[in-house]
C-alpha cells in the first residue's frame, strides 16, 4: 500500500514563468501526487526561486514516467546520500543521534540502494545488517552493544500511505472521532473486511489475521457471547488482553457473574465480589487456562473459544491485578515483546473497550494496518490518535453493542 516516491529539485525563475505550476500540473495529470517542500521565492525579480517536490505515484513505472516527463522542465532528482550508521555503545542503549521511527513504511539507503525497514513500528530505532542489506525496527531495550543503528536523517525516507483501492471507512486512513456519527456503515465495513480476511486466512494468505485487543468492559457490558461467537467462527486470530478480561470471562462461565454482578439478573449476588478471585484461584490450581478448558472446567466464553480455535492470546499484567491468572505476563517489557511478536501477519486490528491495551497495541501497529478503536469514552480514540496512530477509525459506542452488531452482520443467529 505504500507509495513510490522521489524528491526532485527545481530552481530558476519558476514562479512567474509558471514553470512550477506546469510541473505540478504534469504530475497530477499523469496520475501522481506531490508534496511541495522548501519553496523559496526570490525576493526580487532577478533572484531565482527554488522548490523541492516529493513526487509520489502508485507504481514504480508510473513514478519513472512522471520523472521522465518533468525532467525536461528542469525538475531533477535530488542527489541522495546513504544513511549513516553507528555502533550501539552498550546493551540497551542507542547511539546518541539515533533515528527514531514512525509507524509509516520506511526505507533506508544502503550502498546506493533503498532497503525497506522490516517490522516497522513507531518510536523504535533501525538496526542494520550491512552484509545482508537487511534493516528492521528495534526497541531500545533489545539492542546489543556494537549493533549497527541508523543515526541522523540522511538516507532515511518515510513513505506516505497510499489510499487503498477499496472505498470503505478505512480508505481515509485518518481518525475521525465523533459520538454523533452514524455507526452502522463503519461496523458494516469492518464486517466486510473480517469476512474477506477470514477467507484469506483459511487460504493461508499473508496479512490476514484479525487482532482484537480488549478490556473487561466487554464482559460487563454484555459483549461476551458475541465475541466468543466471533472467535468460534474463525473471525479473530489474535487476542491481546489483561488479567481482568480473562478472569471475568471465566467467572461468567463458572459463576454466572461478572465482577460479582449476576449477568442475567443484573444485580449484585451475595459474596459475588469473591467470584473473580475464586475463578483466578481455581485456574491457578489447574495450571493454565488451556488445561482448564481442555479439562472441561471452563466450557463457554471467550477464553474457551480462544483455546478451541487456537487463537494466540497474549495477556499483559498491570499493578492492580489480582492473582494473576497463569499465562499473564507481569513484566511489561516482556509483555510488549510478546505482543510485538504477534503483530506480523495482522491485517485488521480491533481495539475494544480498553485504554491501556488500545494504546499499547496502537504503538506496536504499523500505519498500514487498518485499525478501529471502539470505546464509550471519546477520549480513548482521541488519545490513540494523539499518540500517533492516525490510521485508527474511532467509534464512540459501547463494546457490547459493537460486538453484537458485528456478529449479527457476520451471520450470528439473533
Amino acid at each position, binding site marked *: 500500500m505504500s507509495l513510490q516516491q522521489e524528491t526532485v529539485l527545481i*530552481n*530558476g*525563475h519558476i514562479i*512567474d*514563468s*509558471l*514553470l512550477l*505550476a*506546469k510541473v505540478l500540473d504534469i504530475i497530477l495529470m499523469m496520475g501522481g501526487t506531490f508534496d511541495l517542500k522548501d519553496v523559496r521565492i526570490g525576493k526580487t*525579480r*532577478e533572484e*531565482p526561486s527554488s522548490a523541492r517536490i516529493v513526487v509520489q505515484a502508485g507504481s514504480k513505472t508510473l513514478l519513472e514516467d512522471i520523472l521522465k516527463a518533468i525532467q*525536461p*522542465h*528542469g525538475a*531533477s532528482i535530488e542527489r541522495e546520500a546513504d544513511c549513516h550508521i553507528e555502533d550501539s555503545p552498550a546493551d540497551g542503549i542507542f547511539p546518541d543521534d539515533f533515528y527514531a521511527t514512525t509507524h509509516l513504511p520506511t526505507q533506508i539507503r544502503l550502498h546506493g540502494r533503498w532497503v525497506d525497514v522490516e517490522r516497522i513500528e513507531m518510536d523504535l530505532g533501525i538496526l542494520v545488517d550491512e552484509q545482508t542489506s537487511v534493516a528492521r525496527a528495534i526497541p531500545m531495550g533489545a539492542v546489543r552493544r556494537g549493533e549497527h543503528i541508523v543515526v541522523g536523517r540522511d538516507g532515511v525516507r518515510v513513505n506516505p500511505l497510499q489510499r487503498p483501492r477499496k472505498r470503505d471507512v478505512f480508505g481515509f486512513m485518518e481518525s475521525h472521532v465523533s459520538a454523533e456519527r452514524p455507526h452502522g456503515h463503519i461496523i458494516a465495513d469492518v464486517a466486510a473486511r473480517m469476512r474477506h480476511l477470514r477467507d484469506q486466512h483459511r487460504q493461508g494468505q499473508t496479512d490476514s489475521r484479525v487482532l482484537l485487543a480488549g478490556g473487561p468492559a466487554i464482559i460487563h457490558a454484555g459483549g461476551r457471547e458475541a465475541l466468543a461467537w466471533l472467535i468460534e467462527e474463525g473471525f479473530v486470530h489474535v487476542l491481546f488482553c489483561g488479567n481482568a478480561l480473562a478472569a471475568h470471562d471465566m467467572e461468567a462461565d463458572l459463576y454466572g457473574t461478572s465482577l460479582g454482578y449476576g449477568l442475567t439478573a443484573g444485580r449484585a449476588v451475595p459474596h459475588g465480589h469473591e467470584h473473580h478471585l475464586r475463578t483466578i484461584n481455581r485456574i491457578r490450581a489447574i495450571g493454565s487456562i488451556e488445561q482448564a478448558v481442555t479439562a472441561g472446567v471452563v466450557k463457554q466464553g471467550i477464553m474457551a473459544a480462544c483455546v478451541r480455535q487456537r487463537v494466540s492470546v497474549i495477556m499483559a499484567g498491570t499493578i492492580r491485578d489480582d492473582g494473576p491468572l497463569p499465562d499473564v505476563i507481569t513484566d511489561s517489557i516482556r509483555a510488549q515483546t510478546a505482543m510485538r511478536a504477534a503483530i506480523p501477519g495482522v491485517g485488521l486490528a480491533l481495539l475494544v473497550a480498553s485504554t491501556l491495551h488500545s494504546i499499547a497495541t496502537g504503538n506496536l501497529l504499523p500505519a498500514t494496518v487498518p485499525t478501529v478503536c471502539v470505546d464509550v469514552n471519546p477520549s480513548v480514540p482521541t488519545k490513540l490518535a494523539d499518540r500517533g496512530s492516525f490510521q485508527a477509525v474511532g467509534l464512540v459506542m459501547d463494546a457490547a453493542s459493537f460486538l453484537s452488531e458485528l456478529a449479527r452482520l457476520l451471520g450470528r443467529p439473533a
Partner: protein
Amino acid sequence: MSRLLVCPPDFFGIEYEINPWMRLSNRVDHELAVKQWHGLMRVCEHEIGVTLERMTPMVGLPDLVFTANAGIVVGRTAVVSRFRYPERQREEAHFEGWFRDHEYEVVTPDKELYFEGAGDLLGFPDCWFGGYRQRSDIRAFPFLSERFHREIIPLELVDTRFYHLDTCFCPLSGGELLYFPPAFDYYGQIAIAERIPADLRLSVPEDEALKFACNAVCVEQHVILPSGCPTTQRLLHAKGYRTHPVPLDEFMKSGGSAKCLTLALD
C-alpha cells in the same frame, strides 16, 4: 552604433537534417544564397548603419553562417554555445576562438548544458526569455541568470518548426514583442502576457510566422525581416517602425532567416 557578428555563406548548404525545415533533397541555390546574404548586409550597413564584424567561414561547417547561435554577448562577456547536435558542435571552437581573438571574457558552460546562444535567449533590458525543450536545456538559464543578474523566464517551445526562440519571438526596441503565440503552450503564453501588456504584443499570423516573420533584426526604429510578410510589416508600421524586407528564402531551406544570420555584439 550597433555591431553585428556575421559570417559569409561561402560554405553554406544543407549537409544534414536537424530541424523540420532541412531536407537534404532540397538543394540550396548557392549563388542566390550568396546574393541574398549580401542583400541583407547591404541593408544592415547602408540603410541602417550598423557595423558588421565578419567571421571567417570554414569548409565543412555549413551553418556557421547562422551566427545568432554563436553564443550571447553581454558587455565584454561572451557565453559560447553548447550545441545539442554533434553536427553543429564542431562550430563551438570557431565561435569561441573569434570571441577570444576579440578579447571578450569567454564563459563556457558544461558540455552537457545545451545552450544555443541568442537563438534561445532574447529579451528586454530588464527581463530575458529563454526558449527550451527543442535545443537549449532549461538548466542553462539559472546558470546564466546568476551570471548576469537577470530574470530569465523559461518558455517551452512546443512546435518543432519553431525550434529556436528567435524563430517565433522577437523583442523590439520600443518594448513591443513580435511573436507567434501558438509556438508556446498555455503556461508560456500566460507568462509572456504577465510581462508584456496586450497593446505591446504584436501577434504574427501563421502564414507569416512560417516565413519566419519573427526572425527579424531590430535596431532602434529599424526592423529587417524576411520578405513576403505584409501583415507583420503593417503591425510594425502601426508602432512607428521602419521595415526592411529582405528575400532570404535560400536560408529558410535550412530553417533560418535575418535574425539567425546575425549576432548582436552590443
